Structure formats: C-alpha cells, structure tokens
C-alpha cells in the first residue's frame, strides 16, 4: 500500500503586535440538525445556520454529519493588533468576536467563518482559497509594519 502522506499549508506571518499562524486544531465536521444560539461557540460547535454547526474535535454522535477536516485551513491571529487587521479586511466590528462568539462575514472579499479564540481571532478559510488569503494577509501585515 502506498503511503499517501498529507500536504498541508503551514506558515507564519508577523507584523508589529500581530502573529498569524496556521494551526491544526482538530477534525472538522459539518453537522445539521443541531441548534445553538446564533453566532456562538458551544463546546467546539460553531454556529453556521439555525440548524447547522461546524463542529471542531469530535463528530456529533447523530444526525447528518460530513467530515470536512481537509476542507479548511485554520489560521490563528494573536496580538493586540488583530482588531486593526480585522478593520482592514471587514466591516465586522471586533466586538462581534467577544469570547464565545463567531461570525460568518466577508473578509478581504471572501465569505468565511471568524471565531473568537483565546483573546485573539481564528479564521476558517476553505482550503482552495487559503493561498490567496495568505497572500492578502502577507500584504496586510506589510502595511502594518
């Protein structure tokens, strides 16, 4: 049997007060039939729609579940300048990403999921768009230097 190893994008971008790093926080599942409060994160489940979540970690035990682990590249933004970067990319206010909250929005022209994470911000971008988004983030970081 051939060893078909993974190819994953790993990179770190830095600017004064900001670090952007790829991360692999665990497996990801789209799960329908689950209802949580809009735009919140509940035990790793991120609200996407009234009856759909993106579950991080363990797949929900029942219902319509699709493994989309390979479908996303996850980026963590840390440092006091992350709200400034958000203000470059989106009209979403940083207050929408208070602890325990997430939001789907237009970010640098892409529709994607943002989530609060350890005082900073986490981006879930679909894998095919990750390279382009990282180009944008690199340019944005340069502008902050």
């Amino acid at each position, binding site marked *: *049997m051939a*060893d078909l190893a993974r190819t994953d994008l790993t990179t770190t971008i830095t600017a004064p007060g900001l670090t952007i790093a790829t991360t692999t926080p665990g497996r990801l599942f789209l799960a329908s039939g689950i209802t949580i409060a809009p735009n919140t994160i509940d035990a790793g489940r991120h609200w996407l729609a009234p009856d759909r979540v993106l579950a991080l970690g363990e797949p929900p035990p029942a219902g319509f579940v699709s493994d*989309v682990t390979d479908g996303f590249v996850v980026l963590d933004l840390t440092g006091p300048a992350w709200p400034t970067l958000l203000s*470059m990319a989106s009209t979403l*206010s940083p207050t929408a990403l208070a602890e325990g909250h997430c939001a789907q929005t237009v970010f640098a022209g892409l529709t994607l999921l943002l989530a609060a994470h350890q005082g900073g911000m986490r981006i879930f971008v679909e894998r*095919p768009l990750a*390279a382009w988004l990282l180009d944008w983030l690199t340019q944005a970081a340069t502008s902050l230097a």
Partner: protein
Amino acid sequence: MKRLPGGGRIDRTRTLDFTWDGRKLSGFQGDTLASALLANRIRIVGRSFKYHRPRGLYGAWTEEPNGIVDLAWPDGRHDPNARSTLVPLEAGMAASGVNAWPNIRHDALGLIDLFHRFLPAGFYYKTFKSPSWETFESRIRQMAGLGTLRPDADLLHYDTRHAETDLLVVGAGPAGLAAARAATSAGLRVMLADDRAAWGGSLLWQPHDIDSAPATDWVAQTLAGLDGATLLPRTTVFGAYDHNAFGLLEQRRTAANSWAAERVWMVRAKHVVLATGAIERPLVFPGNDRPGVMSAAAVLQYLREYGVCAGHEVVVATNNDTAYATAVALAEAGAIVSLADARPDPGPVALTAQSHGVRVRPATIPVATGGHHGLRWVDLAPRSALGTPERVRADLLAISGGLSPAVHLHSQAGGKLRWDEPLAAFLPDAARPGQFFAGAITGTPSLAAALAQGHAAGAAAAHALGRTVTLAAPRTPDAVAPTPITPLWFVDVPDRRQWIDLQNDVTLKDVALAAQENYASVEHLKRYTTLGMANDQGKTSNVNGLAALAAFTGRAIADVGTTTFRPPFIPVSLGALAGLRHGKLFSPVRHLPSHADHLANGAVMREYGGWLRPACYQRIGETVADAITREAAAARASAGLFDGSSLGKIEVAGPDAAAFLNLMYYNEVANLKPGRIRYCLLLRETGVVYDDGVVARLAPDRYLLSPSSSHTAGVLAMLRAWHQTDFPHLKLAFHDTTAAWATYAVSGPRSRDILAKLTTDIDLSDDALPHMAFSEGRIEGLPGRIARVSFTGERSYELTIPAAHGPALWRHLLALGAADDVTLYGIESLSVLRAEKGFILIGTDTDGMTLPVDLGVTAPLRNKHLDFVGKRSLLTPDALRPDRRHFVGLLPEDPSFVPAVGSHARVDGRSHGWITSSCHSPALGRSIALGMIEAGRARLGETVEIFHLGHISRATLTAPCHLDPQGARLHG
C-alpha cells in the same frame, strides 16, 4: 504679488527647491505648490479647457478650478492632474502647466479663443458635422482633456480601514471642535475629521477670543481634551451613504513611517455633525476669468496661512460683508486697497475698512477687466449707471459673491435643501436621521453662533445615546450683526462672456443659450453646458449658474433648485478605493489541491470560473495548440489523468431529500438507486438550463450533487432559496463539501489497467462498478469513492479522497500509469474530447434562452409527472415553437478550417443560428463544430453557409456526437 517677510504659518527656516515649467523656484515648508507659485509671482498656471485662455490661481483649497498641473515627485510618482492648492510643497518636485502647446505662457492653441462664437455649449451637436463628426473627432479628442497620463505603474501603496463610531464630526473649525468637545465630555466615541493638516478651520486666519483666550489656545486645549477620540487630520469626508455610512480619504503621504500614501476609511456612525463650513462664490462680470481675479477668502488664506500677498494695487469687489476682512488684512500687509461694494449702504464694516486706509465705493460693481497675461486694470461702475465706468489700476481683483454652505454630504444622503432669500444661499432643510448641523453650513456667519450650534449638536448626539453633557458651551464676544447681502448674479450688459464655470469654460452666454433652447431644467443645464461637471464639481459655479438660469427663464431660484449631489466631494483615486485589492489580490482565485504539482509539470494555468486550472501541460518545444492535440490524442490512445477537484460536491440528506431534489431537477432523481449516478439538468423557473452535472445517490435519504465548478455556490444558493422560502416544511439539509475532497479522473482504454494496480477494497469489476455507478471504500488506506463517470467518452474512473492527500495520490497515479503511457491532460483538451462526443458545456453551447428541448433532452418533460422548477415554462407557446434552435453538430466542408465560435449559419441570406464550439479533432483528423441552429434536428445533412466577419465557407449539419455514437468506448 510677493512673499511677506513675516507672517503666515509656514516654516521660513526650511527652503524647498522645485521647478515650474523647467524654471528653478523655491518655497518653504508649509507651502502648497499653489502658494509657492504665487510667492514666486507666477500669474499663469494653466490654459482653460475649451478656449485655451490663460488662467491664474483663483482659490486656495478644494474650490480651486484653475490650478491643475502636471506634477512629478522625486521618488518617481506622477500626477497629470495634481491640484496645486492641495499638494504640499516637497523638495525636488517638478511641476508644469497642462493643456497648452508649446507651453502655457505662449499657447498656440490660444487661437481657438478667436473662434469662440463657433464653440458655444453643445457645439458638437451643431458643428463639425460634415462630412461626419468622426472626421474631426480624433483631432478634437487629442486637443481635449487636461494633462497626459504616463503608462508607468502606480508606485504608491493604499490601504483601508473600516470603523464604527458614536459620532462622526466632519470639520474641525470652531463648530466641529465644539461638537467634538461636548460629545467626548459625555463619553461618546468620537471621530473628528478635517481636510487640513492643522486644526481650527476658519480660526486659523482671523484672530478671535474664545473662553477669554486666543482662539489658537482654545483649539489646542480642546484637542488635548478629546478623550479617546480618533483624530483624522488631512482627511476629507468624500461621501455620505445610506444609514450614516461615510467614505473618508486620509492623506498619509507626509505622515511618519506610513506605508500607505492614502487610506480610505468606511465609517458607520450612529450620528454625524456636519460642520463643513461654506464655500465662497465668485461674482460674475465681463473679464472675470483674467489671471489676477481671485476669491477674496482665498486671498486672505494666502496671506494668513502662507504669508503671500497676492497683489499690491488691489480692488476688492463684493456684495456682502465677508470680503472686508480680506481688504483690511491686505491693507495691513501694505497693499493699496480700494473696495467696490454692490450694496448702497455697507454699514459698520465699511467704517472699519476705511479706518485701515481702504477706499470704499458703495453701490459699485466691476464691469470689465484688462491686461495681457494678467490683470492690469478694472472698470468699476455704479450699479445704476453701468455705462459710465471708472478705470482703476490693479494687479489683484479679490471678489466675493457670497457664501454657499457646503451641504454636499447632507444632499448625498438624500437631504433636501431650501433657498433662503435673505441669505441668498441654499441651506439644509430638515436633517436626515442621525444628522446635525453646526456653523457656516447653517448660513450663520458668526463665531458665537458656530460655537453654540456645535456644542448643541454634540449634546444632542449624546442625548440621543442616553448621555448628558454638563460642560458649558464655549463663549466668544458677540459680533456686530452683518449687513445683508445684495444678490448680484451677473452684470446685465450685452457682453455675456462672463465666466460661470472656469474649469469647463462655461459662460453666461452658454446658460442663456441653454435657456433659449428650452433646456430649462437645472439637470439639463448641467449636461448641455457641462457646467459643474469638471473635477471641481461646480463648487464655485453651480449656484451662479442656476441663478442665471432662473433669471433667463423668469423663475425664482427656489423653483430652479440644484442638481443632485453625488459622491465623491473631491476626486478620489481608484488606487485608494482599491486599497490592497489590486493586481493578484484584485479577485480571489481558488487553487486545486495539486496546484504545486501542476506547476511542476509545466501546466499553463488559466482561470476558469474562479479556479486556477491547467489549460494544458505544455512541453518544451511545443505550442499550446500542439499540447492540446497531443493530450487529447493520448487520452483516447492510452490513458489520461485529469484533475477534477474543482467539481462541486454538495451532500444533501434528510427524509425529504429525494422529494425535494425531484422538485429541483428536470430529471427524475427519486428513483435513482443507491450506488448509481445520473446526468441531470437544473433549470431556472423560466425553464432555462442553469446547470448540468451528475447526481449520485448514496443512500435512500442521502445524495451527492456535482454541479459544475463555476456554479457550485449558485446551485447551493438556489437549493437553499427554494427550501427556505417555498418548501420549508420539507426535512433535509445541504453540506457543501467541495473543498474537502480531491477528485482525479483516469480516462482511456488503459484506465482499467492503471486502476488495477491501486490498493483498494473497492471491487472494480464492470459488474460491481458499471458505467454511471460508484462505490465507497478505501483507496491506499484512505476513505474515498471511485465512480465511473465520463466526460471524454472513454472508459473513465473518478477517484475521490480527502483533499490533503490529493497531491500524493496524484503522484501515485502518475507513477502507476507510467507503464501505460498515462498523459496529463487539461481543460482545453478535455473541451476537445467532449466536443468530439457532442457533450454540451453550459454557458458555451447554451445561453440565457436555452431550454432542455433545444438540447434534445425531452424525456423528463414527457415522463416526469411531478412538479419541478421550470416545468410550467416548458409548456408555453414559445417553448413549444417548432422553429426553436436545436443543438447540432457541424462538419466544415474544408476539414482543415476551424470556424470561429459565433460564426453565423446563413441560409438564404438570413442567420439560422450560430456556432457555439469548434476545434480540430485529433480523433477524426479534421475540424468539427457544434452549434445552435433553427429546427436543426430536422435538418441533419443540410449544408449551410458559415459567415464570420465577411468570410464565407460551408458546413454540413450533423448529430452533435461526432465519435462513437453508440458509446462503445465507455466500456472498452
């Protein structure tokens, strides 16, 4: 004209050298290019747009119509339309005049002015018509315009910020500062923007006392006390949009360490205070465009801001009080000043002026000017006796026709204006929601009123957000009440060459012509004469123009009204609006999981439907066309490997999944067995084919839809729309898993041999895995699917595994297939292969009118009795017409000729349709085509003319499938 030895807010210790039309000149830090030119006695800064008349500086800031120059900076940046009054002087700048040949001082094209009678407004509708406008157009276009673009790339960076705030204060003059002060004291989040580098607005140029201290101290203290406010100097609020959204342009070029030269802010404000001030109007009279005729307010600014005295023998002409401050300031600077006031009784201001040595002539107006290449004299006449002028020597005529409140942002937001007769000004009518006004924008000229209004506005915004302001309003001693303005819209003499719009060269004569030709609406006046359409957007011309129109059409100014105000208030460069989103970052593009491998394999990548995909894999020594032919031939001779990872993969699950999808699709899908795949069409409600793709049934309540790559998002949105708005009671859900999987197609006679070398638990026998079926299992240990689906007409297998493992599988398949001559093939050769088989490409062979019947797919309409989207539209008379265009094949008579896509199929001189796809077919060794031809299916074998841009050839209509119509190769 001269630079005064002292005064102004420039730094005389820092000299900046620059050039003007090749001459070496110098100015000081703090100058604009305009003030430096004035200080160097440059009278002519340009040639007018249409008549090439010499023009000098008129204004000092954004209102300036004439001072547009070509400007190059030492760092390589270039602006062909730099506005000299706004550009800070920098060392090493090279500026020159535009719109003249050979130069602006001696412009040969100035002869045009002699023919001005043949060039009135709208001349291009009336002259230059024989033999045709096109004969003259290119030459006129060459002469038109201001400045020349250089083709170099823009060297500057631009960035963007989005922000929210409680209160946006536009303008940091006394009114704006008072508003910001009040609001921040109540704890509001405030953004304060002013287009100047220095704060204070009108307080910068006139001495005042506020709260018993000099105004400059009050400004500094106020700013220091604005807790938490975002201060934005050099920032123009250029646009007001819905729901208190605003566009701001921040100039950052001279800010320390700024990466971006300009920054666009989009701000959503709960409230806004418009403290934007007022713009001075010119007086309109014969000869009012001569260099040396300047705005009185601008002359004061040049004096107080830049230490430049714009004239020595000065006439000030006015119809209101505000110009008197200029007269007094000029007299204090040593100029000889006389003042002509159109009003018979100017009041207290005249006495003050006279005490400073200014000679005041009441009830007197200017009626002519003279002087070659600049002002030398002014004719002043009593208003009641225009025929008896007195000639006064002057090198500067400072004029003031009144103040027009800067209501632009209010109007852009949909606010209405009302004409105030006593003030002779358009004032904002009712405030829009969340909007407050303060200062000169309300028509009030006094500082005391501006401070009070600003404070009240800030307090009102605070109150609306549930806070209270306890701070007292700033106080200043009351001023004497001004003497009212006397409107003087133009001089009523036969000579109507009185300029209204300096930048677009529109005169009173043109307004009269428009009125005479019944362009009575102010919107028509604007378009017919181009008044107000230049890049100063009529800041000094709109009101004078519509007032003249009112006079010529016998109406009140209030009845004429203004044209619609639109953003931007000043020109905003496209680069600034783009921010980071230019070049590669202009538009997001998707990469395939194996992107790097494709590049390594020599792929020519092109964008298809938002995805970067291999068009072909070009080898050394071959052209793209060679590569396409080679790949297509190899895919039929041995085996081809294709990256199909961009195909959509939408999982649909739920007890009502089958019923819902049957409602959505043209084809029957509810009877599709688990493990089977069906090619289906998705229609719009109009019956038009929107997408084709395959539907796979995974389980009784679970499907996998594969829309075409460019339509995945659209199909998902369509499904969600129908579900949520029309069929919410049906229980099902959709998961877009497109990005999670990589899919590769192995296609061709040797495909089975290659697959046999894979380690998989999936039974690959034709019994277990027939064409249009799939199986799930493990591929080299990974969860995945193998489907037998073919877009080439060859035996094909599509392998799907998790996307992160895609690149490794791709390389593995290449290695496995090496012994079987596997060839990588891209989109272009796939397009050839499917064309040989007569398979449609949505959007290429179909358009916004194509129905399933046109494609020959009629069984579902006959047999599917359940309702589906678009069904009713397939039963209309238009859908049932026998002469509808049908999808057919065409074989050109000349087998080496590939007709252009879009060529018409002509019969008896009439087009019967067109060619939608065409190529050289390696399998047939000749050219083939596909097209949409009227009643085509009934005309197979008929010969038609192929017509394209005058070239005529012939072709025969055939069935679309040119190769292996029985489909034997699918099982080969």
